């Protein structure tokens, strides 16, 4: 459903991504791994159209994403949960979730109930401001905001980075449920290779802006991790 071929992406004149190929099936779970600074975030930003320029082929459900502006890509059903969460600090939890409904094609402005089942804390804190939540709560809000658009694919960038272990567990459960039970397609950038190995159907390992290795989730063995990801 999401497919890149010979994808290049630039900030200014520097090509950050070079000749990247990957694809995700409908209902699939793709993990993106790699050391810091290899271009994982840039890959997700390229899918959203947030880099300065991109070339090559990038298709979503057969449509050329590279010809679309960012809001249109959201409208096509791609939900992006950026690194560092980026909830709107002065918006309440309710406004942040409401914002998630803006790309909806059906024009609905109701926040889907299942978001509060996944993250009960959001219902409790519905009138608090996003900027006043803890990191873990903000991450739940960021995922809730993404789900509010009723997306076809979720792009998550290191959602468990800097978050206390009990919430990490909850976030992992949610990602698994969304993918396995609700059939939502997921592209996950993650440093935690254990979770990717257990949960992803496939992984892509980036190095210096190129694909260094790819395989099925369970092929992301300790050997691979030691070779490509150890510091």
């Amino acid at each position, binding site marked *: 459903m999401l497919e890149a071929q010979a994808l290049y992406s630039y900030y200014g004149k520097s090509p950050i991504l070079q000749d990247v190929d990957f694809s995700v099936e409908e209902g699939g779970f793709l993990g993106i791994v790699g050391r810091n600074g290899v271009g994982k975030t840039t890959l997700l930003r390229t899918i959203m159209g947030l880099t300065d320029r991109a070339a090559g082929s990038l298709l979503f459900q057969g449509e050329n994403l590279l010809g679309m502006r*960012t809001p249109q890509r959201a409208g096509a059903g791609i939900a992006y949960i950026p690194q560092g969460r980026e909830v709107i600090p002065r918006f309440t939890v309710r406004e942040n979730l409401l914002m998630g409904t803006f*790309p909806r094609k059906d024009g609905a402005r109701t926040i889907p109930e299942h978001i509060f089942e996944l993250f009960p804390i959001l219902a409790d804190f519905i009138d608090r401001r996003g900027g006043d939540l803890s990191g873990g709560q903000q991450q739940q809000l960021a995922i809730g905001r993404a789900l509010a658009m009723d997306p076809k694919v979720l792009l998550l960038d290191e959602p468990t980075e800097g978050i206390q272990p009990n919430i990490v567990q909850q976030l992992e459960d949610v990602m698994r449920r969304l993918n396995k039970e609700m059939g939502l397609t997921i592209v996950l950038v993650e440093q935690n290779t254990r979770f990717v190995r257990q949960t992803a159907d496939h992984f892509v390992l980036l190095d210096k802006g190129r694909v260094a290795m790819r395989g099925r989730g369970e092929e992301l063995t300790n050997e691979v991790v030691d070779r490509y990801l150890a510091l």
Partner: protein
Amino acid sequence: MEAWVNEIFIGISLASILLMVAIGLAIIYGTMGVINLAHGQFVMLGAYGAWLLQTQYGVSIVVSLPVVFLVVGLVGFVVERTIIQRLYHRPLDTILATWGIGIVLEQLVRNVFGSSSRYVARPEFLEGGYIILGAHASSYRLFIIFFSLGMLAATWYLLFRTEFGTKLRSVIQNTEISECYGISAKRVYALTFAYGAGLAGIAGALITPLVSVTPTMGTSLVVDAFLVVIVGGVGSLVGTAASALMIGEATAWLSYVLNDTTGRILILLGVIVLIRFRPQGLFPDTVRR
């Protein structure tokens, strides 16, 4: 006593006009970071709009307000779409460009209508006035005060109770993420610029019965409005309103007690001292990020 009340009253009505000009400036600066030096000319266009509607079609100023809002708003929209939108990554160039646009608008008006002063009559039902605490309060000035309070409330409603306002506030805080959630920042920018221009136009139309209409009339008003924005900060509508009241009253009083020029110089000095100690203005935007 009467003179006192009279100056307070004149100060408030001046503040009301300033408020509408300043809200436009502040909202444009707060959203796009554009210092709009053409704002005074938007005020002037509004004034000429009211004059034209009255002399050509006999339309009362009260009726012309919505027309002026829409027309000057449209001018703002076109200016944003054709010129400003290309310059968002170059703040210095936007200052130059808006300055140039102001000059062009002013000269256009001079070519079409000449540079002689024009006068607009207040509506008949707003002739006369009331005696408040022994002083005469003209109905028209009262109308200005209530109308601008109405516009303040309308702006608050637009920002905090409509979907457009939510999108605008979202774009202000995080443009990229807003776009990732379906909000077209371009559209928001153009409409915000149009709204600010429309408010300036209304201020220009409202003031016509009190001053003469000339191609350069917007300049001094917009200088005061800039002072309002600097003193109030761009964070809150209440801050802008309070600051407009302060500048309006100070202007009325100082030009009454001393004279116009000395008054202006003192206000300018006061503002300079203030920003030396409170660079964010009196009502800064404080939020945890």
